[in-house]
Each structure stands twice: as C-alpha cells, then as structure tokens.
C-alpha cells in the first residue's frame, strides 16, 4: 500500500496530453452568453401569470416588458434581430433629445413613461438606459431598467445595433386626425432588422387594435380605421405585431395553429416560419415549461386577439 501511496503522491499521473484549444473557449463563452440570457429570460417570464413557479422572478413583469425581454432573448440566442417599439403617445416627448450622446461616447436613451397605463410615472428625465459607447443593449440592461421601473411599462426598447442607427434629436412623427403619434418606424426600418416588433396596448390605451401582416399586406387599425402598413413604412420591412392580451388570460381557443403561423407572410415574404422557428428555438432550449408557453402566447395569440377600441374582436386577414 505504501508503494501505491508513494507512486500516487510522488509520481503524479499525467493526464491526457490533449489540451483544449481557443475554440473551446469561444464555444464556452458563447454558451455562457446564451445560457445567461436564457436564464435571465426565464427569470423574467417566470413572473408572468401562469408561468412556472420554479424560479423566483426578478419582479412581476409588465406585458410590454415581457415582449421586450422575449424579443431580446430571441435576438441574442436565435440570431433573429428585432427592432422593437411601442406606440409613443403625444405626451411622450421623446422627440426632445430622446437620445443624448454623452461626452464619453455613451448614449443615453431617455424613456418616458407618462403614457403608460395605470402607472406611477415620475418625471421623464428620471428614466433612461445608458449604453456604453459601442456596446449593444443586452438583456441585463433591460433587466436593470425593468428592476428600476418595477411595474412600469417600457415605452420602447431598443435592441442590439439599433441604437447607432437611431437619429439624434427627433423621432419621426405620424399624424392621425387630431392626434399625433411618435412612431420611429422609418428610422427603425433602416436598421435592417429581421423583424420589427410592435407591442400594442390593452384596454383603455390609445392604440388598441393592430393586425398582423397576412399575405401581401398588413394593416393597423387605429380607432377603427384601417391603416395600410405600407403607408407607415414604404420600405415594406418585415413587421411582426405582438399583442399581449394572452399574457393575462388562459389559453384561448383562438390560438393560431402551427399551420396558420406558417401561412403568415408580409409582402410576399413568409414570416410565420421564421417566427415559429425563433419561438421553437427558445422552446427547445427551455424544455417546454409553462413559462415558455406563456411567452408563446405572446406570439400565437396576437392575430386573433387583436383588439379594437370598441372591444376585443377577431382580426380578419386581408385577402
């Protein structure tokens, strides 16, 4: 036994000669990034109604924040890029220095919460996300912001690579009748993202009805009047409109079936498959738990749960 002891101690056995290359480090770092994003996302959505109780949520997420964080995660894990925006209402004042470039090169994106429904909204100037020069907006950035805002809705969240394209100074505005809305479609379009995500409001908010793009066209319903999407952004970029009603409700029989999702297209370009693929990518990663299903509702219910100013109604796909 002493001999064994001696051989073990004094002549350490050389392990396999193989060493791990830089590729291992790269792959590990990529996995770290992906996993930490997914972990964060899981924590975020776990605060949603019907979500898994397995993990302590960071806080209870607003529906908009759920949309935003889900998109961010999809963007960062599935490689699908999104530009995200929510309607900016007249009092949002985001046209005034919505993005400030600081002397150190960092960009400060001002967030205005005045138009958020039912929220305690401090002065606009107190809300911002600061982005380091050259850095992308990460889910951590979003999380920090969300934590700071507690229950408040995000008015808009700008994702990776969007910031550099965002105009300094003013945000494009669109007028509808007597109402003026700030809607940075044109700018966001220029970012070349795969999807633009429009998160619309619930009952009581000004914008209450949006349809998803179907077939060769898509429409927004503003106060009962359809508005052609192409009028908003002639570039015809892919646009996905997300409705979040389902977050607050149980599964609906109106949930789109997979084959229906696959049929979604805009301007001749199929988008359903991409959306579905992106969702499934996350589903696979997260092992189909309730949190995911809840998140999935964000997407699958968005068409038929779209809401008009007069109440919920079925969206009629354009022929």
């Amino acid at each position, binding site marked *: *036994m002493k*001999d*064994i*002891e001696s*051989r*073990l*101690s004094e*002549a*350490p*056995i*050389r*392990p*396999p*000669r*193989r*060493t*791990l290359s*830089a590729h*291992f*480090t790269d*792959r*590990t*770092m990529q*996995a*770290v*990034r992906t*996993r*930490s994003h997914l*972990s964060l996302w899981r924590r975020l959505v776990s605060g949603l109604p019907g979500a898994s109780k397995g993990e302590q949520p960071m806080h209870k997420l607003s529906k908009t924040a759920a949309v935003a964080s889900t998109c961010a995660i999809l963007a960062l894990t599935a490689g699908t890029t999104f530009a995200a925006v929510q309607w900016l209402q007249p009092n949002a004042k985001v046209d005034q220095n919505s993005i400030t470039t600081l002397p150190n090169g960092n960009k400060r994106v001002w967030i205005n919460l005045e138009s958020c429904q039912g929220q305690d909204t401090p002065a606009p100037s107190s809300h911002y996300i600061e982005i380091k020069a050259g850095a992308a907006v990460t889910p*951590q950035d979003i999380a920090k912001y969300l934590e700071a805002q507690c229950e408040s809705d995000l008015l808009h969240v700008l994702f990776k690579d969007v910031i550099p394209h965002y105009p300094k100074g003013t945000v494009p505005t669109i007028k509808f009748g007597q109402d003026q809305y700030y809607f940075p479609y044109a700018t966001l379009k220029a970012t070349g993202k795969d999807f633009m995500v429009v998160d619309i409001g619930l009952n009581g908010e000004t914008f209450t009805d949006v349809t998803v793009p179907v077939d060769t066209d898509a429409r927004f319903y503003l106060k009962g009047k359809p508005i052609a999407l192409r009028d908003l952004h002639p570039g015809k970029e892919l646009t996905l409109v997300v409705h979040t009603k389902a977050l607050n409700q149980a599964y609906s029989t109106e949930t789109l079936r997979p084959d229906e999702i696959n049929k979604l297209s805009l301007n001749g370009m199929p988008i359903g498959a991409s959306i579905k693929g992106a969702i499934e990518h996350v589903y696979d990663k997260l092992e189909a738990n309730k949190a995911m299903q809840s998140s999935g509702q964000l997407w699958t219910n968005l068409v038929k749960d779209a809401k008009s100013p007069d109440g919920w109604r079925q969206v009629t796909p354009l022929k």
Partner: protein
Amino acid sequence: MIRIKSMSIDEPGLIARIMNGEQDSYRILVDRYKNDMYRHCYFIVHDEDIAEDMAQEAFIKAYLHLGRFDHRKASFKTWLYTIATRECLTYLRRSQPLHLDEDDLVPSTLAPTDQLARDSELYNAVMQLAPRYRTVISLYYWHNYPYTDIAKAMDVPVGSVRGWLHRAKQQLKEALS
C-alpha cells in the same frame, strides 16, 4: 471582445469585474483553467468528448452562479473543481448508474493518449477504478483537496471519502501486484 492579459489581474478583482457586467472577462478564467478542468473531468468520466462537455458545463454553471462564489472561502479554481466534479458524477449517475453503485472495477478501453502517462501502469490501473474512486484519487492526490472539500464536492460524508480512498488504493494494489 475583451482581451486582457490574464496574468496581470488578480482573481477576486477579475471576478468582481465579471460580476459588474464585463462578461467577456470570463474568457480569462476559461482560458486559465480549461485544461485543468478538462483533465479532471476526464479522470472521472473517462471519455474525452464527455470530459470536454463536462468542463464546459462547469464553466457555464460557475458563471451563472458567480454571485455565490466567495473567494474568502475557496479559490475560484477549487470552486470550479467542485462544480465540475458534481457535473461529472451527475452525468455518470444518469447515464451509467451501475458505475456509481458498484464497487467492482469498471472495465474500459483507454484512449491512445492515455498511454502517454508518465506512470502508465499506475495510470491505467486508476482509470480502471470506479468513477467515485477515480474522483477521490484525482482530487486528493493530484489536486490536493482535503477530505472535507472532497466530501463537499462529491456531496457525501467525509467518512465515505476516507473509505473510498482506502478501497481505491487497495484495488490499485491488487491490480498492480
């Protein structure tokens, strides 16, 4: 991507930076310990590809739980070994339950690289041991873990560690006699 001269940064400071959002700095730790981790995992799982996976998993888990790491209690490397050990043992428990339940020798085929061992006879004998015996040998002799830390890493009482170590050496003796 952040490239930092790894040796110039003390570990607690580096970890603090990572915790502060410099995710890419974690690369330094991965680079610093990846081979140690891989070898350690290899001793337990006895498969190069799985060892690599386990090492990667350990790094990922360490990152995700970095907030729990306390450098006053253990070095990052020790903590990482603990995570890796558990990962490997969990893997073996799930995939080859008998390996952990049986005290008998586990037959295996050694990879060609194994033959490069300095003491190939002893090395081969160790690699024939059941995973938990290999693990205690590896941690105790080659990583200088005290019994208590091995027990913690393997989630067993200290008495089990002592017993396994003793039995491992007995089996080695028999195998080499």
